[in-house]
């Protein structure tokens, strides 16, 4: 249980920080697709008997670079959608080859936070630090190119390189979070809290902190509720995220009638 709390806290911090940029850059679809790539990696590692975290990381990175490259020619959203389903289908095959089909699929897709063991903590913490470091290093160019594309280019930010760099950060964040909340649900954690945070404040540093706070509350309450009710953690994460988004929108409506939820200071 203590492991679950520790690892979930790290996940929430990363999801809150990275998710802020996901929302800012309107990268919701890649943020949804990359975890599914990671799913294939974990499934492959399962069959080959490798370390699942290594498989996850490798495949998430592959998905990130693949989406970046495919999206360069052709439509970004189409490339993302197709990369997504291809990875999922590959994952299904790998799991089909392994013996434990059903429980493995379920825990990879929807997470198994209560089953985290203590020797899994260290690599997850390492990935978390790497991820935070990368965000800190790229903080200004990321913010600049997300808010004002042309301004960023004028200042010498390379849009394509930055895009891929951001997708790689997303991949790292994904790799550490998939074993905990699952490939499908990390996405709600990266969308709901940051979107709500942005509705409350327009200042990026404050919004990031708020988004982390909301993500923490979401994850902690989800674990507690899931422990009490025996229902899956993922359900509570998904619902709480949606509720926080709805609250954020209601707040925007109420405090600034006429302003849209996506207004950014």
């Amino acid at each position, binding site marked *: 249980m203590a492991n679950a709390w520790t690892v979930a806290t790290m996940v929430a911090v990363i999801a809150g920080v990275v998710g802020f940029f996901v929302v800012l850059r309107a990268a919701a679809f890649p943020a949804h697709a990359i975890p599914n790539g990671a799913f294939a990696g974990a499934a492959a590692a399962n069959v080959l008997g490798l370390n699942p975290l290594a498989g996850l990381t490798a495949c998430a990175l592959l998905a990130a670079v693949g989406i970046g490259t495919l999206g360069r020619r052709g439509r970004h959203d189409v490339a993302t959608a197709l990369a997504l389903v291809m990875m999922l289908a590959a994952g299904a*095959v790998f799991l089909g080859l392994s013996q434990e089909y059903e429980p493995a699929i379920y825990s990879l897709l929807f997470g198994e936070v209560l089953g985290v063991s203590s020797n899994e903590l260290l690599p997850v913490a390492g990935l978390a630090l790497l991820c935070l470091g990368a965000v800190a290093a790229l903080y200004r160019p990321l913010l600049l190119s997300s808010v004002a594309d042309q301004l960023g280019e004028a200042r010498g930010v390379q849009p394509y390189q930055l895009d891929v760099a951001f997708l790689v950060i997303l991949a790292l964040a994904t790799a550490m979070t998939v074993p905990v909340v699952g490939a499908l649900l990390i996405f709600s954690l990266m969308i709901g809290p940051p979107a709500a945070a942005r509705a409350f404040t327009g200042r990026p540093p404050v919004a990031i902190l708020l988004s982390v706070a909301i993500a923490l509350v979401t994850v902690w309450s989800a674990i507690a509720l899931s422990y009490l009710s025996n229902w899956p953690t993922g359900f509570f994460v998904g619902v709480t995220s949606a509720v926080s988004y709805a609250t954020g929108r209601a707040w925007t409506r109420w405090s600034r009638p006429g302003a849209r939820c996506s207004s950014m200071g």
Partner: protein
Amino acid sequence: MGFGLRWLIEPGFWSSSPVRVALVIGGCSAVVSAVVGVFTVLRGQSFAGHALTDVSTAGGSGALLLGAGPIVGFVGLGIVGAGVMDAIGVRRLRGRDLATGVVLGASIGLAALFLYLDSTSRATTGATQQILFGSIFSIQSSTAPVVVGLGLAALVLVGVLYRPLLLSTVGPEMAVARGVPERLVGVFFTVAMALAVGLSSLTIGAILSTALLIGPAAAAVRLTSRIGWSLLLASGLGLAACWIGVLLAYDSYDWNASHRSLPVSFFIVALIFSFYLASGPAARLRARSDGRRAQPPPTQVSAPGPALNPSPGG
């Protein structure tokens, strides 16, 4: 490729009734998805289409929990999800991704709960696999008429919407000027998308059904700039992927000694993905040889949507 396959087909392929049902259902959903998909791709709504697949995941698993057939949930909740997405504003370009994402996330949460309850409350296993990745060979033949009926309904819907839909896809400003009820068209189109997704969920599984919706259409749109041709081409590619996929899955039973056949959905998705990859070079090749017929691609340039790089390769 028809006669080349003849010696590839395992004996008993045509006489097996699950295979026949699979071919009918797969073919029907492939055509519907391809037709709806062309508009989805042109309107830049791939993400919305994909979100509907996750909504129908929740629907399918919920229906299973209630003891109904998955198709009821796939289609039913898909239509509800379409309404919700419209209500919270997937039409607006800004924030559209976000609204879609939130619906998606919430429905995945529901799916997690339903699948968990499915696996604990019922003695049968395999619900997760059946809903998520499809099980086309185990569909009862009585489902086929329902699928064909829903497929026809979706096609009729697209047919009725065809002109206003095309106008609002290609030139939104012009559509507004001509008095096209944009919102209504959008809602009905999302319903058509939900129907298509529901049908392909049955074929290749709920979380993979994006492949049938987006893949053939995206490849077709790259290859031709005429809307009529792209509809035909997309349907052809979808049908080919589906039927070859069913055949390969049937054959794969004999590929390894343990006689464990690979899932149909994998073959279909892999075929679609390779069609899409091949369509880029093919389109460039065609553009080079057809250079003399300088025709502006009206359907490609003006696709609205949040695509970061809306220029298709070719």
